[in-house]
């Protein structure tokens, strides 16, 4: 490769890195409850840079969960532009959104959402399988498991794990396919203060060590303090 083409590639990569990993413009979401229209999001604009740990903070009913669902490709937007890692969600079909969830976005839910019939290890591996990857953990991922403190709990089923341990398994599951973004919806909502601190510490550590982009939805200001940036949402708008 010539020096000029190397420079061109490097320039393109730098440009890609400079591009926000999430770019939202004029996002609205309207739910139809019978004849009644309920606007959950009313023109949200948001940009999140690669490697950021951002907390979206808002009260119940503010639209933060709807934003989480749209950014995760779980539900389509009504209007507006949503670009995640260079992919526009607005025109995506169901199959394309499924693919987005498989390759680009990882999830951590408030209620952990682990499959109860599988061990912690298999809960992680099934996501690798769905992502079309080898189900053997890489040495790097083994290190992440150690960092999460669950390497000796992998053979246990979710019911044999504490809430904090289950959430750390869920984090491991969320990042095992190296997603561009990890979306966490109230990840400490079901945890006591000690486990909350541990899980938030893990997310912060993960962000700092690996540069994993994390977008966390929370109503808790203390949880939000672990993020590098906080965005407030109220009545379906960023304030």
């Amino acid at each position, binding site marked *: 490769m010539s020096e000029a083409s190397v420079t061109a590639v490097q320039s393109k990569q730098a440009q890609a890195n400079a591009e926000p990993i999430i770019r939202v413009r004029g996002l609205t979401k309207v739910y139809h409850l019978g004849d009644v229209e309920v606007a959950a999001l009313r023109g949200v604009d948001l940009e999140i840079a690669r490697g950021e740990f951002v907390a979206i903070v808002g009260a119940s009913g503010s639209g933060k969960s709807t934003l989480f*669902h749209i950014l995760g490709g779980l539900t389509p937007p009504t209007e507006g532009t949503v670009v995640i890692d260079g992919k526009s969600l607005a025109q995506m079909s169901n*199959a394309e959104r*499924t693919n987005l969830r498989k390759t680009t976005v990882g999830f951590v839910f408030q209620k952990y*959402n682990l499959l109860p019939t*599988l061990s912690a290890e298999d809960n992680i591996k*099934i*996501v690798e399988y769905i992502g079309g990857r080898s*189900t053997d953990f890489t040495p790097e991922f083994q290190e992440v498991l150690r960092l999460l403190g669950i390497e000796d709990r992998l053979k246990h089923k979710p019911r044999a794990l504490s809430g904090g341990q289950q959430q750390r398994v869920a984090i491991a599951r969320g990042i095992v396919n190296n997603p561009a973004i990890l979306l966490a919806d109230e990840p400490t909502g079901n945890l006591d203060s000690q486990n909350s601190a541990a899980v938030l510490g893990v997310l912060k550590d993960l962000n700092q060590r690996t540069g994993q982009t994390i977008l966390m939805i929370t109503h808790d200001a203390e949880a939000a303090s672990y993020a590098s940036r906080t965005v407030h949402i109220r009545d379906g708008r960023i304030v």
Partner: protein
Amino acid sequence: MLNKLIFANLTHRPVRTLLSVLAIAVEVTMILTLVGVSHGTLDSTAQRARGVGADIIVRPPNSQVMSSLSSAPISDKLPAVLLQEPHVTQATGTVIQSLTLPESITGLDFAAFNKMSGGFAYLSGGDPVGENDMIVDQYYAQQKHLKIGSTIHLVNHDWAISGIFDGGKLARICVKLTSLQEIQGTQGHLSQIYLKLDDPKLADAVVASLKDKMPGYPIYTMQELTSMLSISNVGMLKEFIGVVIGVAVIVGFIVVFMAMYTAVLERTREIGILKAVGGSSQLVLGLLLRETLMLALLGTGVGILFTYGTQWLMKHMVPASLVQETVYFWWPIAGGIAIVGSLLGVVVPGMKAVKQDVTEALSYE
């Protein structure tokens, strides 16, 4: 990995899995037992017919191959007439009295029959001597707990057991020809006639010749008769098997439908999780189909084992009435029927799972 999840799902609700497998197993057992009994009954009938040692059988006019003959419309002078035919060396007639299906009593001329067939192989006792004597095969003796000297009341008559023979020849219950003719009031008449030829290879030619001379009489070579003892030649048996298979498919459909429908409802959240982490509709549907296929295969295996159970029960409880064969070529057919019924049963639950909204599924409690 998916197999692991399927196995985990099946073992997570062991009672439901067990009941589903058992229901499919019963479906398979129903089919295999019915087919086995049909084949067993026909084959044992054919075996007994071959055991006579005759080459040709002459049946009364208007009779069917598998019809039971309780009438005796043929004159007992006919065997003597038939003996005059070229190549016919022996001729003997029998009368038959039907009992409860599939049992019947056969009256025969023991001297002529023994000459034709080589006689019965007795396990105990011997040919009837008195008019009230009866011989039975070991299966009938076992089923009715009969020994030499036992009495049995049949066709309003008390019979004394004089012999128990090794089954597979002519009939299960035999008495002297004259005794049965007297009870039936058919003195001088026969139900059918067996002929033996000097050369069995000439049987077809002799049958053709006899048919010319005796129009209206169904006359078969023994080979032809035994080959006609098939399911399709027994009135309504084929249709009956079809009905049982239809019922079996419906049973399998309903059981799997209910099991998988409740499974999909119960696993709403888990299906939502799979979809949330990138599982496609095909993956979810494939998971349910493979789980159902596993249930159907397990059910088929257990059903085949159960069939050996029904076979054992028949052999030990009603060995003379019901003979069940193991019909291997029906194993994959019964399995296929179970799989088709089960897969039909999972279509609606599967579509429900595929259409589930991810966010609603994740919030399902």
